[in-house]
Each structure stands twice: as C-alpha cells, then as structure tokens.
C-alpha cells in the first residue's frame, strides 16, 4: 500500500536516502528486538535446515527463513520446500504427463 505521505508529497518511488533509512532500521530493529545478531540467526537457520533434512530431502535452493515484525512482536517465518519424491530412476516418471482431456486427445497428432 503506498504511504499516505508518499501520496501527499508525491514522493519519488523509494529511491532517496529516506527509504534506505527505513530499510536499514527494519533490519536493525528486528535483530534488536529478538536480541539475536545476524551471525547467530544464520547459525539457527542452518540448524533448522539440518534437522528437517534428517527426515526429508529439502530443496535447499528455495529455502526462505526470515524474521518478521508483526506490530511489535517478532516472529520467524520459514518457507522450506521439499524435493519431490523420486521413487526410482526411470526418467520418464520424473515429469508427470499432462492431464488428459478428451478435447486435447482429439487434437493430438498421432505419433
């Protein structure tokens, strides 16, 4: 939602040092509020991933664990996608076939 002041002052979109100040503050305060410096947070993230990886295969390229402020209450929000289950090594089984509809079947060229 665009800020009131943005609309009132016709403020240039998020380029000045004001928005930089806001971003920096948000980062600083999130760590101040939980009293956890960035390095400790990284260690915690790694440990969370380790635990989950013991049970399932994690898609580590798409993990997103971040701190959030809800009003003044900090929370940790984790989005940890799993890898798709691979049952056996048959490559055909890896990409599922598109769902069939009668129409599509009709259009399909015979091979």
């Amino acid at each position: 939602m665009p800020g009131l002041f943005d609309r009132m002052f016709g403020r240039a979109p998020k380029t000045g040092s004001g928005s930089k100040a806001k971003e920096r503050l948000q980062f600083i305060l999130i760590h101040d509020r939980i009293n956890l410096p960035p390095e400790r947070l990284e260690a915690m993230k790694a440990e969370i991933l380790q635990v989950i990886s013991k049970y399932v295969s994690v898609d580590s390229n798409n993990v997103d664990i971040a701190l959030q402020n809800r009003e003044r209450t900090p929370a940790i929000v984790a989005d940890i996608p799993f890898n798709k289950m691979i049952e056996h090594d048959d490559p055909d089984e890896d990409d599922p076939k598109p769902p069939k509809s009668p129409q599509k079947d009709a259009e399909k060229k015979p091979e």
Partner: protein
Amino acid sequence: MGANGGAAAKPQPPRKSATGAKVITVTSGKGGVGKTTTTANIGVALARLDQRVVLIDADLGLRNLDIIMGLENRIVYDLVDVVEGRCKLRQAMIKHKQLPELYLIPAAQTRDKTAVSPADMIKMADQMRPEFDFILIDCPAGIERGFRNAVAPADEVLIVTNPEVSAVRDADRIIGLLEAEGKKTPHLILNRVKTEMIRKGEMLSPEDVTDILAIKLIGIVPEDENVVSSSNSGMPLAFLDGSRAGTAYRNIARRLMGENVPFMQLDDNSGFLKRIQRLFGGQTG
C-alpha cells in the same frame, strides 16, 4: 514567592483536582532529540490552557529545563534537596511569573545521580497529584537509573524522536523497556521534521516512523529555528502564537487534554490530509 516562600503561608488555597494530576514522562533514549524543549513547551502550552502544571527536571547533574524556562536565577532548592529532606516540596517549586499555575522543580546540578530512587519519584509525584492537573517529567538520556526514576511515576510516557536511524532505534529500545515493565503503550512525538526533505525522499516520513515503531503519534513538530531563539531568551515558543513548532506543541497539549485536534499543515502547498488522523491515538479519532 515560590522558591523562597517557605516561611510564608501558602499563596492561595490549593484547588483540589477531581481526579488528581496525570503524570507524563518525556523520554527518548538518545540525547539531544528535544526532550527538554518538548517538556518546556508542552508545560507552557498546558498552563496557557489554564491547567495547573508542575515540571520536574529529572536530568540530575545536567539540569537545563530551568534555562529553557528562563528560571535559572530563581533556584534555591532542587529535587535532591527535597528527596534528602533539606526542604519541603513546596520550597523547591519555582513559580513562573507569567503563568502562575506553572511550577518547576529543578534538577540538582552537582550531586550524585544515585541520590534519587524510583520510589522517591513516585512518592513526590503522589504528594503533588491532588493539587495539579499535569506533572511533566523531563527524562535524562540513556536507559540507566535516571530513566528508571523518570518513568517510575508515569501514567503516560511520551517518546520524542527525530526522523533519523539512530534516534528511531533508541526510541524502539525505550518502547521495548516500557513494554517489559508493563507500562501503558507510549505515544510518539516526531521532532525536527523537515517537510522539504521528506518530499524529496531524503528523510524518514512520520508514516515510515510509525510503521517501524508501531505506536501512535501524538505530535509532529517541524524543524524551526525559532526554537533556538526562544531558548536563547528563556521563553518557550509555546508562549507565542504564530510559530510552527509552537503551534505543534500547543496542539500536543490539547491532545493530552483529550481534545480532538486535527493535524496542522506542515507545508503550505500540500498540507496534511484528514486521513493522517489514523496515525494518531483514539482521541483524535
């Protein structure tokens, strides 16, 4: 009268307050953001609105509320003298000449900061509550003993900050400490706002700051060079009509009295919309 009127009878029979004074502490964490200026101006503004007001300078060792108020030559006793029993509370209260319902209890300039405890502050405030409408406490910078003393008797806390990263960070710390102590959620005064810089995107806006701190604003005070000249002459701006910062302080005083005061225009061309009100506490609807 006032400071050295200890032997004389009380000047006039004290009016009893129906509900007792509201004790308001002005704090910030960071130094130099405008606590003392704010305390002085809100005090003057409330007194001009016929409120009976006591200002307490709780910045032991670094007193300057007396200077801003132009009362430095009339100090006989101070806060520590009261606490240590060298004088009666009334004897340390300096009465303002132009506003006879406005008093100042100055800080000690030289004494040990541990001379006063939170319990002493609560006792002193309770003693004054029946005879006043507002007791305003000017808090020292920091989060140490002086801060604890100043917030101990507070019914309400006003946090002063500037639209700058370090000042807002310190404000957040103070809000967290007050939360942990179970104090009522404080209100925010954003001081030294420069409209032109906000317009250019070069300064945190009031909305940015309230987004981040998640507390309600009770005032936005513009940067105003009249603040300096009024400090020079010991006459807080709120004495005069016309200056922008003085008007902002007087609006805060009216909001503290429960009045629904719309936001003044910080800028002649654009001005504030009514919707700005949602940034404010319930009393402004």
